[in-house]
């Protein structure tokens, strides 16, 4: 069964670039990789999605190597408001089910 692995937690300071890497073995050829952000007491929300190489939007960048067995979410110049839990989710993980990993709890300090 496909499984995602992310660091449980990360610490950073305001203004730094943060990179969170997710390993996803057995990802299918046509699966996209989606990242979500969750603030306390809220549901997760979509941040970014990609298939290969690099994708950038107004919030983050996503780097996916050629073998697609991992992906890295990059948050440029984080602020205190980026403190949240970040989840990666390969599409189609385990068929119709969408199984999240434990996520990465990012703490940004002043």
């Amino acid at each position, binding site marked *: 069964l496909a499984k995602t692995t992310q660091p449980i937690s990360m610490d950073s300071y305001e203004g730094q670039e943060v990179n969170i890497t997710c390993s996803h073995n057995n990802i299918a050829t046509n699966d996209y990789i*989606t990242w979500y952000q969750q603030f306390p*007491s809220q*549901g997760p929300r*979509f941040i970014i999605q990609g298939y290969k190489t690099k994708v950038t939007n107004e919030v983050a960048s996503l780097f996916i190597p050629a073998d697609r067995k991992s992906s890295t979410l990059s948050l440029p110049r984080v602020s205190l408001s980026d403190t949240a839990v970040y*989840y990666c*989710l390969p599409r189609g993980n385990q068929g*119709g*089910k969408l199984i999240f990993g434990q996520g990465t709890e990012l703490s940004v300090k002043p």
Partner: protein
Amino acid sequence: DVKVTQSSRYLVKRTGEKVFLECVQDMDHENMFWYRQDPGLGLRLIYFSYDVKMKEKGDIPEGYSVSREKKERFSLILESASTNQTSMYLCASRDPTNEKLFFGSGTQLSVL
């Protein structure tokens, strides 16, 4: 943007009660999901539905059932609530055009 609404933000129930958690989405999505979230355990899938009256078990279906009578509404049912079902419950629907999940704000259920 897609709106996913969960009927209650906070709910307190007693052990043995039958509990209904309601979720409604406004974008005609076929796929809907129920997760529970506990500290240190991330999001765990309870049940999902890929169409009206269609459902499949997730990773932790024991003690739960679901109902999908209309496309927009997906209900999670705790047949006989127990204290170990105290948790945050999150509902989501999936946009088939881009596979994005849209979550509700969650229901914090306390079973006493």
